[in-house]
């Protein structure tokens, strides 16, 4: 099952004379790889809510629990229907799209144009409901989701990198490229940008903001589903808090990148992953989970507009 890669041997050979150096470098490599894949996970979670934020101005704090729901839907499809794993993934993502559309109608349409307080608290309320429904339906005990890449390792310079994590990095980059295109030259992107610039004028010019909002929520939930079926198997097991903690990292990444920028959030995500894994790999390992948030608070203190962008930061807040 283990996939040996020639590159790993090639890199390892010159250093082979000194096991200590090899150990140090392999630790560095594996931490870097973990950081990059952690960053990809965070970024994948974050692009989902950025999509909705850019299209509707709603910051969806329930996005993390939608990610959890995506993972559990895939689990349910494989467990109860014996669906092939990739079909279960596809089914989960499709179901998530529908759930997103329904949620938009039921829970989020009434929130449009409300103050940020109302939106944050109501979406957090929705998050609790989603999480509890999952727990009641499929149980709160830890579960594991299968994946074709599960168990495969990629050896680089003495470090073993789970293939699932490489898949996540690749998919994240593809998704971001796709979203960048979607927000760019497409009709969808034009309408979204028009709404972002001036909601009323855009509507007067025929932009169907309600339909756009439904599409955005559907796509966002589908992205959450995609994130769920990818992130779930990256953990040996997970429970109903899977998405929420990933989501917090996603918010931190969004702040680092200057809320609203897709490129920014990806770079912010990688930065968070690398700081958590690389810095946390060497210093106060028990507390490395705190590093993303300390970094975020530091960025808010020093550069509240985000590391990259000067202007997107506080738009519409």
């Amino acid at each position, binding site marked *: 099952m283990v996939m040996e890669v020639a590159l790993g041997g090639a890199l390892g050979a010159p250093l082979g004379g000194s096991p200590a150096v090899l150990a140090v470098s392999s630790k560095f490599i594996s931490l870097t790889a973990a950081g990059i894949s952690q960053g990809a996970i965070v970024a994948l979670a974050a692009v989902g809510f950025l999509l909705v934020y850019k299209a509707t101005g709603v910051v969806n704090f329930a996005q993390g629990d939608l990610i959890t729901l995506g993972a559990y839907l895939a689990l349910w499809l494989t467990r109860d229907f014996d669906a092939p794993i990739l079909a279960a993934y596809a089914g989960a993502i499709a179901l998530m799209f529908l759930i997103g559309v329904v949620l938009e109608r039921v829970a989020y349409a009434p929130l449009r144009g409300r103050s940020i307080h109302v939106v*944050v*608290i*109501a979406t957090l309320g929705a998050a609790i409901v989603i999480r509890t429904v999952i727990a009641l339906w499929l149980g709160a005990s830890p579960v594991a989701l299968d994946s074709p890449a599960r168990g495969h390792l990629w050896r680089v310079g003495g470090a073993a990198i789970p293939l699932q994590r490489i898949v996540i990095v690749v998919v994240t980059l593809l998704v971001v490229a796709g979203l960048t295109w979607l927000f760019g030259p497409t009709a969808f992107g034009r309408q979204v940008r028009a709404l972002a610039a001036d909601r009323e004028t855009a509507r007067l010019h025929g932009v169907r903001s309600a339909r756009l909002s439904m599409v955005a929520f559907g796509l966002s939930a589908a992205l959450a589903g995609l994130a769920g079926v990818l992130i779930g198997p990256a953990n040996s097991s997970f429970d109903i808090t899977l998405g929420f903690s990933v989501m917090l990292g996603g918010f931190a990444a969004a702040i680092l990148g200057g809320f609203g920028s897709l490129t920014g959030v990806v770079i912010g995500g990688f930065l968070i992953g690398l700081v958590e894994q690389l810095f946390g790999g060497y210093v106060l390992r028990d507390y490395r989970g705190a590093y993303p948030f300390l970094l975020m608070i530091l960025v808010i203190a020093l550069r509240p507009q985000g590391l990259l962008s000067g202007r997107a930061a*506080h738009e519409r807040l």
Partner: protein
Amino acid sequence: MSASEPGTTARPEAGGPGPAAGPAEPPRPPAFRGHPYLLILAVLAGLYLVRLWRTEGLAEENLFNTWLFMSCLVVGFWFVFGVAGQFAFSQAAFAGLGAYTAAWMTGNDHPFELAVVVAVLVCVAVALVFALLVRRAEHLYFAIATLGLSEVLLLVFRSWEGFTGGGELTNIAPISLFGWEVSGPDRDQRAFWLFLGLLGLLLALATALQRSPVVREAIAVRDKPLVAASAGLPGVRIRATFLALGSGIAGLTGAFLVHWRGSVTTEQFGVDLGLAVFLMLILGGMHSKYGPLLGAWFYVYVEHGLRDSSDYLEFLEDGPLHGVYTFSENLDQYWPILYGSVLVVVMIALPDGLVGIGSRLAHRLTGAGGDARSTGPLARLGLTGLGDVAARLRRGRAAAPAPAPDRPGPPGAAAPAGPDTTTPATTDTTTPATADTSAAGPADEAAAGASARAEPAGVSSPPAGPGSESLAAAGGPAGSPPAKGEGGGSAVQERAPAPAGAVLTARSIGVSFGGVRAVDAVDLTVGRGEVLGLIGPNGSGKSTLLNAMTGVVPAEGTLEVAGAPVPLGKPPRVRRAGLGRTYQTPQTFTALTCIENVLLGVPDRRRMGIVAGAVARPLVLADERRRWAAAQAALERVGLPDHAERPAAGLSHRDQRLLELARALVGEPKVVLLDEPSAGLNATETEELCALLTGLRAEGLSLLVVDHKIDFITELCDRVVVLELGRVIAEGDPHGIWSDQRVVDVYLGVPPEPADADAVDVEAVP
């Protein structure tokens, strides 16, 4: 610590109800009247009776104590979110910090009293550091940052073995306050007295602060941070104070909780409780300090009730739901669904919470006015608070003014050729203002404007020396009652320290929005006692220039007020230097009364903090009386003498403008910037405003007026500066300016067409 303690706090408050104590003494502000502490005692007594009447057995007593404990925690959060509007998810985590700190202290054989004090201090310190770090964060960022802080604290609880024992602690010593232990057979009885006393103390503290200036200021900072800053309020300090206060209370309750329960786990302080605190506050009603009691009751008792409703659900399962759905064994598993849904529904449909419903009903029944400073829909918080003002001010720019270039002007650069200000009596140049002459004004001006336009050949170059010609023009149709003129003379002498020359000197003011140069190297001087008009087409940068000078948009350039350099980008300092302002859309604080709006602008800020508000009541009362008198005088000055205790929410557009003006005037400013003061006013109201402003000028006040009503500008101003595309294109006498072809061109386009001057008023606010 017993339930009767709040009563002792109440004693100094026994002032006579009703208005002023004597004719000579300034009136007792309404916050100092009445007996609100009696209500607290009544509530506590009611709680005691409910416990006697309804509570039997250990389980129920325990539940009752949990309710009181949660109420205390949420009252703490009421300070953070209900009063100061800060979106903090960290309340539960701070309770945890207090709990673990206190447990660590007592675990190391320190007395419980010391442990509680240390726990509170640790929480206050962490909250202050955090608040200062994220001081520039707006609502959403602040919310996310507090979520992050919660995660960090929880991680510390879980990982720091030496401090928290890995999160799980048992066998914690019982509460022992000066020998009085919460243990033994009547443990729950004693815990009840303890939490009842704690709740009473916290409610008394809330009342004391509501009756001191600090809550008024916190509400202002919450609702309109930028306007509050421009009125001179230290927003960061006020927000940090309230976060620290609420977090300290959280630490206090946490410390009591662990020593009451005897054990602690990390999970109980997670984000779930942080969100539950929101639910309790919002459901109960965040605008009343008693709301937390109702919200906590719902949270504690409904969850418990769910657990006890299995009989009913078994009936459902056997009957209508047979074979369709089987309920979970543990019914409290459904609890999060219920409270999550309640949260969503309440946020959408019931933003004022249960107390809000109650007070609305009471309103309808009695027709009595509520407590204006603490009532009002939640929507106001976010919508008018930020969405409206800030968007308008910043035009989509980053919220926090970036650290502005802090370049004081060259010291010798005070404007050289100001008007001869040794004559405070501009009154002698005024003509008697009667309704007739004012009414005649517009027609005259229209004629003058028309004639000016008719001969565009006579282009006059803008006068070179800013300020130098102002007195020449001061003979314009200004009006002031003689009596006011005399009063004004003395006012000028009081404000004497400013050197002769310009009161306001702005040099090379520049503002860029992205690639747009909204204001480009504008120099501006307002002479002493001068009224300078600033006109220009829409988008020419007038309001942006005002915002730049008052520090609410990032700008470069230098600013001097009365010869002293003032750093740009710091609204409170600009205000303290003597620069007042009003806004294009009137910015009043609708959650406050009229006089409270004006009080915000009073520069005397002694004893405004929470410590003074809580313990130094007589001194605060004396200060408040003085401030109150000043604010009342400002209200009278603008013609709103009877409005003091009316809520600002119901004011007409005109009165809102006047109220705003009173707030700008109360600090005895050296110069007031008026942004379209006549917008939205009808002809009569505009005339009245013109007479009022002319009277202020006669008292020696300098004004910078942006407006679109040409007759208003012509009648009022000594000198006019015309702005176009962020640059000054002309400057001069308000009558002569219309003979400048460039001015005519920018206003009317090329070729010029005759137009009604009134029609230019297109930015009138609905």
